């Protein structure tokens, strides 16, 4: 079976070689025929036939005949002649053709040459080898039936020797060199077959002692390899190396065969030193690898644990020797090239793959692999440097990368030393950092970027592993892990600063001197790294102080070196650490004020440091907002955590006080930071004001969500009311704040601050709605409306809009007088609890308010701080309908209030009183139409008096009503007489 396989392999190789040559010959033949065709000597049909059947004798003749007849020049003759020649296929006829016509093609010599060449080039190697090997095989089989194994062996050896002698003879003639070489190779293969058979093939086996059999096989291999060496080409060398390995593979496997295979491969590699024999090298390496896999399988090993150590070591040594020999092969001046060399590269990479797979197979799993691999990595790294000196660029790059990979792999094996993933990752980071440093120092364009990218990747991996470890193992080994990560952080920072100093060339992700606007990934990664370290330690108070010190140093450094990436990273770190601290403070920190304060102080200081060292050259100003907002957020949160457990009311009040302090700070801080070296940012105060607004917003939210539910009293006063009153005072402080001109430059000033008066008003309305009983609401709205009217008149320039709000509140009072007061019910019998009492007081107030507003309301002069033109227009329209909007709602409301609140029997008297009041108003305001209105009302009342009261009221009530109405009418008459000149 193996014999046929060998033959088959030989046949394939020979056939492949021969077929290539055959193709070339056919092409050259076609060219020649085309040339002839151009000369008009032959017909293309015939050419095609000829070219398709080059070996056919009759066709050859046909060509000759064609030549002759083309000379004659007639197609008919040609046809006849052609037929005749075909009928008489005699080669002598060709000779009968006139000599002068075939002189150009030299018929005799040409034919002989063709036949010889074809034999030589197409058939000798293939058929000869096949026939001979088959013949030997048949003889062997035949002999096997009759002879003893030793004789059979001898017979085969003799046959091989015969072939060898034939090859020697043939070699004397230059034209037979090639077939002679093939015959010699065949003889070598036969000898190898015989040697193999003498030990292990039934029928040929005559050596029982395995040792001798191996020696014999080795002899056969030696001869075979020698013939391969003599072959002088890659094809022969590869053939004999492969045959040797196949033969060795057929023999039972042990350590010796493995060593022999290594020697074969070494010899094969040695052949490749003759020239750039990369194809041969590639085949040798692949064959060697296949042998190793076969050996591994045939030994029955299924896993690394099943291989005995001596076997393992043998395999490793064998592999190492072969692999490194192959590797060194390319370190020759012969390969010097600045261009990428594909075949040697593929060969080199295959060799590394061979080594990798092989070492994986024979891996001992020992922890001592680490130093070995590390040493190998160092050696290869240095070796790769030699490739550079020799000018083999691709090899330099490849082996540097391989060295780097081996180093990383070596670090991975640190797990065998009991080290955990985080430590190993950190070690890999360190290794990559060293690599990157060396590469940058060496100045190689490719490697320095590669080093830096790898370093970024390693940093990302460290961050991921750090996070994952924290998630998986919780807070076990936090100090140890945080120390490891802190080390990585320090190295990362130093390296980042180092790369800032070194010009790395143009890139969009790294800081480049002269282009400071870029945000670097390298610098940005400092943030996540810091954050991971803090994530391990945030439960410790001391960790916050350490964070504050480290963070401040980094902030200071950032300002000095002006690294935008580092700045971005620090913002991430500060924000993230703040969130961690908040989560801890929210969930776990003991609710003791001192501890909370102790925990929070470093974060506050760090935020202040972020404000102080915030100068960014790119923008030519301090970027203070992250620091300010972070500080404020910490402050707000710390206040909450410190105070909420004491009382849920405390944080809100505290925020209000802080808001006032922020407002003051916005005006005063700048005055104290006088003559700075670099000017403070314009928006510094604006940020403080924004925080103040935010604090007030937070208070409002908290008041609605938390304070509002409480009905608790301190003494006889509600706590909620006290807080609301304090809030109104604070809002008033904000509203009356007159800032320096420089603060008034920000848009927020115009967008938010003017509305503080509205906030004061809204808070007051809210407080009244919440704290004052519903029945007193009309009185409260009337009072507030009067107050706003006064305020709007007193501060016409700034607060004229208060008069508009006054009118709105007046309407609210009017509406509530009619609706709320009349539907309110109480089981109490006390006067003070009755809705109509409050309603009457409100009614009096409204009647006082109305003339006041009529005189001082001046709607048309109102100016809104947020005054869009359409709103101003609406106010002008209101001013035009002044009386309609002001008086008639009141008159209607009072009429309804009287109707719904009092007994129907005295309703006429009450309504007449209302008309009297309207009449008085008409006199005061000198408005005739109110007089007419009062007259109409009076007529209505008189009609009711006649048709309702006379028929339904009791006599007493009737008397009272009539007297009352009469007196009022007399009073109206008196007043009219006295003031009629006013109308």
């Amino acid at each position: 079976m193996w014999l046929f396989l060998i033959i088959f392999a030989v046949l394939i190789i020979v056939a492949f070689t021969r077929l290539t040559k055959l193709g070339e010959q056919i092409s050259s033949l076609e060219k020649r025929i085309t040339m002839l065709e151009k000369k008009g000597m032959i017909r293309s049909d015939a050419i095609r036939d000829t070219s398709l059947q080059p070996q056919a004798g009759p066709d050859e003749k046909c060509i000759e005949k064609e030549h002759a007849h083309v000379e004659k020049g007639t197609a008919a003759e040609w046809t006849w002649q052609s037929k005749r020649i075909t009928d008489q296929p005699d080669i002598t006829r060709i000779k009968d053709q006139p000599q002068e016509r075939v002189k150009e093609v030299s018929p005799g010599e040409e034919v002989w040459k063709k036949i010889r060449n074809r034999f030589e080039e197409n058939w000798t190697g293939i058929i000869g080898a096949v026939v001979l090997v088959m013949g030997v095989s048949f003889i062997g089989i035949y002999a096997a039936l009759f002879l003893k194994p030793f004789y059979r062996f001898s017979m085969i050896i003799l046959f091989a020797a015969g072939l060898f002698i034939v090859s020697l003879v043939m070699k004397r003639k230059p034209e037979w060199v090639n077939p002679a070489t093939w015959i010699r190779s065949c003889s070598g293969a036969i000898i190898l077959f015989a040697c193999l058979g003498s030990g292990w093939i039934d029928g040929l086996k005559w050596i029982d002692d395995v040792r001798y059999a191996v020696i014999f096989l080795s002899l056969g291999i030696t001869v075979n390899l020698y013939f391969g060496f003599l072959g002088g080409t890659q094809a022969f060398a590869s053939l004999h190396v492969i045959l040797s390995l196949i033969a060795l593979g057929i023999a039972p496997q042990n350590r010796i065969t493995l060593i022999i295979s290594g020697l074969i491969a070494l010899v094969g590699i040695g052949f490749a030193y003759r020239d750039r024999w990369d194809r041969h090298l590639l085949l040798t390496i692949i064959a060697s690898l296949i042998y190793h896999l076969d050996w591994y399988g045939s030994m029955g090993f299924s896993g690394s644990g099943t291989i005995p150590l001596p076997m393992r070591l043998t395999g490793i040594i064998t592999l190492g020797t072969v692999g490194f020999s192959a590797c060194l092969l390319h370190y020759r001046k012969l390969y010097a090239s600045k261009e990428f060399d594909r075949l040697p590269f593929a060969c080199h990479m295959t060799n590394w793959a061979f080594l990798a797979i092989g070492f994986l197979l024979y891996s001992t799993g020992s922890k001592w692999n680490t130093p070995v691999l590390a040493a190998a990595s160092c050696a290869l790294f240095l070796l790769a440097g030699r490739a550079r000196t020799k000018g083999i660029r691709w090899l330099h790059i490849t082996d540097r990368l391989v060295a780097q990979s081996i180093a990383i792999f070596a670090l991975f094996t640190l797990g065998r030393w009991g080290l955990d993933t985080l430590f190993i990752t950190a070690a890999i980071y360190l290794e990559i950092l060293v690599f990157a440093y060396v590469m940058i120092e060496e100045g190689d364009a490719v490697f320095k970027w590669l080093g830096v990218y790898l370093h970024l990747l390693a940093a990302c991996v460290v961050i991921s592993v750090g996070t994952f470890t924290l998630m998986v193992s919780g807070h076990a080994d936090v100090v140890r892990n945080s120390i490891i990560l802190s080390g990585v952080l320090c190295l990362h920072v130093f390296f980042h600063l180092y790369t800032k100093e070194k010009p790395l060339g143009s890139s969009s992700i790294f800081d480049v001197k002269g282009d400071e606007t870029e945000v670097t990934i390298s610098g940005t990664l400092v943030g996540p790294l810091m954050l991971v370290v803090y994530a391990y330690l945030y439960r410790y108070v001391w960790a916050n102080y350490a964070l504050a010190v480290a963070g401040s140093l980094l902030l200071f450094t950032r300002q000095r070196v002006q690294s935008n990436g580092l700045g971005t990273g620090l913002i991430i770190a500060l924000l993230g650490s703040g969130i961690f601290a908040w989560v801890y403070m929210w969930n776990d920190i003991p609710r003791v004020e001192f501890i909370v304060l102790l925990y929070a102080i470093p974060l506050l200081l760090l935020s202040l440091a972020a404000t102080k060292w915030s100068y960014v050259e790119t923008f030519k100003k301090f970027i203070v907002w992250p620091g300010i907002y972070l500080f404020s957020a910490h402050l707000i949160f710390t206040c909450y955590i410190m105070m909420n457990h004491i009382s849920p009311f405390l944080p809100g009040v505290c925020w209000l006080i802080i808001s006032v302090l922020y407002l003051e700070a916005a005006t005063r801080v700048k005055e104290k930071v006088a003559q700075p070296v670099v000017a403070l940012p314009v928006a510094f105060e604006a940020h403080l004001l924004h925080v103040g607004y935010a604090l007030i917003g937070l208070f409002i939210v908290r008041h609605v969500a938390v304070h509002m539910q409480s009905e608790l009293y301190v003494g006889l006063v509600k706590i909620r009311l006290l807080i609301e009153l304090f809030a109104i005072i604070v809002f008033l402080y904000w509203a009356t704040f007159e800032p320096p001109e420089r603060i008034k430059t920000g848009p927020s000033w115009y967008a938010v601050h003017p509305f503080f008066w509205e906030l004061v008003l809204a808070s007051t309305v809210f407080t009244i709605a919440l704290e004052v009983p519903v029945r007193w609401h009309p009185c409260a709205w009337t009072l507030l409306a009067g107050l706003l009217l006064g305020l709007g008149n007193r501060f016409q320039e700034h607060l004229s809009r208060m008069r508009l709000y006054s009118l709105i509140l007046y309407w609210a009072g009017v509406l509530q007088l009619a609706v709320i007061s009349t539907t309110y019910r109480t089981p109490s019998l006390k006067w003070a609890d009755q809705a109509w009492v409050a309603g009457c007081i409100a009614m009096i107030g409204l009647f006082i308010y109305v003339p006041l507003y009529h005189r001082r309301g001046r709607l048309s002069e109102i100016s809104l701080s947020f005054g869009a033109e359409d709103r101003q227009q609406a106010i002008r329209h209101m001013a035009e309908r002044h009386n309609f909007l002001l008086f008639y709602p009141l008159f209607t409301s009072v009429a309804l209030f009287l109707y719904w609140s009092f007994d129907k029997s005295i309703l006429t008297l009450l309504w007449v009183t209302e008309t009297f009041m309207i009449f008085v108003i008409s006199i005061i305001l000198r408005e005739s139409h109110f007089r007419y209105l009062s007259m109409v009302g009076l007529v209505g009342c008189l009609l009711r008096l006649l048709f309702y009261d006379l028929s339904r009221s009791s006599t007493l009530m009737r008397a009272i009503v009539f007297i009352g109405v009469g007196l009022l009418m007399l009073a109206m008459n008196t007043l009219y007489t006295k003031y009629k000149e006013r109308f």
Partner: protein
Amino acid sequence: MRTFFLVFVVLAGIGLMWLLYVEKPKTPLDATLAPAYQLLGEAPQSLSRMLSKIVPVNDLDEKEFGDALAQRFECLADKKDKDYLYLNDIMRRLQTTARKPFNYRVYVYPSPYPNACALPGGVVLATKGLLSTLKSESEVVSVLSHEMGHVELSHCSEIVRFELLSRKIGTITLGRLADFAVNVLLRHFYSKTHEDEADNYGYEMLLNTMYDPTAAEKAFRRLLKDSTVSRSRTKTSPRDPISEYFMTHPYLELRAQKFGEKARVWWATHEMEKRYAGVRNLNDRVPYATRQFSDEWVNAYKYK
């Protein structure tokens, strides 16, 4: 002047904080928007009242409607039942303060869950569970006053005003549809406001009788203790803002605190007063007006 104002504001703030630090007041819930919804409900409630004023339906219409409703319960009521007699006796005395011309009637519903509700025209339903949950007559009065408040403040008639109107016209279905539409659109806004108004009415009723004003707080706390009522209303499981919007009643914790504080202030300003609790009255189903136990009187010192 400005500095003075600043110093005043800061000192006032610090003073307030000191007061809070010393008193350490706590809130019943961590956070809730229910009171805010309750306050916001006042505006739509005013609109609803305006609507009621415009609709030509008066107390007599509501009374007729109530009488019709009462007839349904009348046939189911056991008029010899102690609870029935006891509750109606109390109600008869409470209704002397009522402004609406209704005959207030209480029907006892045989359910173990503590609950009560008011219907238009002065019909009140109370469960047996309510009487077993409450521990004194003053607490029963507190609950009945609350229900009476719903009737007196026209909360019940607002729900059926269009039905009442349509009875006059003769198309009841149309009226019911109109009520349904208005209630769906508006009622969520002010249902908590209604409850608060009825609470206030009930509390004022207590103040105007001889009963202990702390009964309101006690009644709420007893209802809160009842697992069927307090379920999902505890401090540890506050509702989300949307659920709070659709809540029909304010939180019992808030109601208890509100009226507990009011009662505390009342006792602080009425130290010489004596009020009646009526634990034994409830146990014996004998109203205060029929029999007074000397040990049922409480004074301010009891709450100090």
